[in-house]
């Protein structure tokens, strides 16, 4: 033993004594690491406190009313009034629509990668999905504005808009006089593409963790691939899949630039998915530079930021909680 240590530390004098834990270097290192860990907590806490203090004048002025008032009137005189409802509604609805668009595709990708794809194709597709996650959001915004928006305008809204609006009971959500193409619908599509890689990658990872013996047993009793996925893989990974979806939802909620480009930025309650709307993040991005320090408007924007923080926190906390058993 002594021999190997000496050989390993060739050139150094062999002391023969182990350094005791708790010597000065160890304590400094421990302190630095603890400091780094606490720094994260302090930063997080600092952000929450800053947002809350910044938003306090608005919360004091409007109280709980701020949450469900649809007024957003930044003209600085007697009519100045702020409420969060429209921005919160736009944020939540666009994100949920994005989830509705993205989840089936993500499931398809994960199913393909884990069950169907030949080995030589698994890696390229897997890498492509991870690259999709690395594309900066401003690129999605530009692409959305110049490619997706005209497409939605010409080939969805103008082509199918009237037929969709004629559907009984739910037709009204497709009926709109807004033909600019920038709408809640376009924003949801862009968001769906942005969060797709996150959901797909999570789903693939948890699908792969299903013990082969379960699947092989199912195949052994004559189940088809679809029956195996439906009867074994999905029940086994159900909670983790929901966790992955929440992860995507968390990203969709806070997305700013891509959404700002394509949502139409209207502080009005949308009556249809083809109407322009707005989200918390894009209201802040649009209005913050022109808000005067200490004004009620700036305070209302801080308050909106605080609400977004709370919503994202709840969603991400839920996702961590659901994923806790799988992602150790």
């Amino acid at each position: 033993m002594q021999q190997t240590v000496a050989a390993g530390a060739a050139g150094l004098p062999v002391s023969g004594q182990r350094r005791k834990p708790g010597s000065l270097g160890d304590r400094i290192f421990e302190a630095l690491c603890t400091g780094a860990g606490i720094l994260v907590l302090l930063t997080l806490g600092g952000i929450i406190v800053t947002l809350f203090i910044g938003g306090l004048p608005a919360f004091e002025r409007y109280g709980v009313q701020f949450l469900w008032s649809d007024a957003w009137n930044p003209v600085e005189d007697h009519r100045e009034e702020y409420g969060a409802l429209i921005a919160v509604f736009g944020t939540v609805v666009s994100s949920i629509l994005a989830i509705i668009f993205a989840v089936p595709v993500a499931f398809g990708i994960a199913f393909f990668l884990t069950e169907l794809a030949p080995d030589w194709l698994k890696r390229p597709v897997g890498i492509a999905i991870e690259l999709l996650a690395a594309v900066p959001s401003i690129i999605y915004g530009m692409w959305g504005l110049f490619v997706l928006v005209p497409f939605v305008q010409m080939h969805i809204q103008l082509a199918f808009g009237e037929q969709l609006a004629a559907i009984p009971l739910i037709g009204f959500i497709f009926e709109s006089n807004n033909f600019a193409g920038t709408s809640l619908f376009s924003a949801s599509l862009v968001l769906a593409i942005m969060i797709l890689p996150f959901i797909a990658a999570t789903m693939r990872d948890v699908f792969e963790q299903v013990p082969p013996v379960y699947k092989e047993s199912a195949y052994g009793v004559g189940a088809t691939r679809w029956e195996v996925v439906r009867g074994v893989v999905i029940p086994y990974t159900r909670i983790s899949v929901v966790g992955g979806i929440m992860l995507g939802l968390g990203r969709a909620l806070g997305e700013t630039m891509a959404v700002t480009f394509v949502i139409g930025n209207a502080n009005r309650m949308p009556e249809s998915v083809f109407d322009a709307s707005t989200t918390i993040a894009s209201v802040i991005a649009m209005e913050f530079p022109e808000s005067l320090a200490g004004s009620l408007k700036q305070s209302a924007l801080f308050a909106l930021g605080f609400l977004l923080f709370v919503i994202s926190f709840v969603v991400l906390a839920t996702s961590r909680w659901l994923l806790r058993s799988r992602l150790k």
Partner: protein
Amino acid sequence: MNRRTLLLGTGAALGASLALPHRAFAQQATITGAGATFPRPLYERWAQEAQQAIGVSLNYQSIGSGGGINQITARTVDFGASDAPLPTAQLAERNLLQFPTVMGSVVLSANLPGVADNALRLTPEIIADIFFGRITRWNDPRIAEVNRELRIPNLPLSVAYRADGSGTTWVFTTYLSRISNEWRDGPGAGTSVRWPVGNGARGNEGVSNIIRNTPGTIGYIENAYAVVNRMPTTQIRNKSGNFVRPEPPAFQATAAAADWTVPNFAADTIDLNGATVWPITSPTYILLPTNPPADRLAASRNTMRFFDWAFRNGSQTAQRLEYIPLPANVHDAVRAAWAQNVRGPGREALWPVA
């Protein structure tokens, strides 16, 4: 002897060659400004020219009028720039002097295939109805009535506006408030308002993009941007009842018709009377501390030197970039205001610079 003169000569030459760049460096003063995005191209061009002419180099950050007001209030820059004038009370509270530099115009741009540039005529009533969302198709009889000789395609009408807070929006909504009492009491005038209809986008380029993308869209943009990017614009009927085209003579008529003797140069330039006046024109302002901090006295002087130079020599540049220079009597009044209001720590006047 011979050698000594040679040495002396070399020394002098060396000294001169060393001293020259040194002197130029000493004269080279930097001033910083922050604020409105609208005059940025002009201030940057002026900065290039002034650096060569008077040795003042300007570092201008176009962070928006609101940001400019915040920064000059905190005195982190030498001057702020704002499109909308500040109320007298706020100027006094923040110890700021406000003066205009140039004027700019806002125009309406509409994407109507088959309709020539500046052919479409709009009245104030039609404009108000469009932005209230009460005209929904281009074949509306109200539009047809004033455009009998035009073939306007029967398209759905949609509206585009600036979604980011901006001086352009302030100017345009001020105009809407003038022409329509209902607008004044409803959405009102501000850097961002609650628009009854339409789609919002960021900046002139965003609004222009919506207009280009969708036939039948109308929106407001800055004239300078419209000219450079060849956006199709419209005529507007002014207060005197004449249809005017958005062209330099109409803008200059506005500058001449405005009353600049009002306090803080907050001249009303929107919807003025006058046969050839373009109704949507507004100055852009500089905010200068009236009590510059001791370490910024030189910068304050240089700021005034910079704009003094710009008033004297910058008008052609301004016109080339589609801005409207102010009349000479306004320039003199601004200089008088500097002399009267901008004071050092000992209450001594900082202008004129000795």
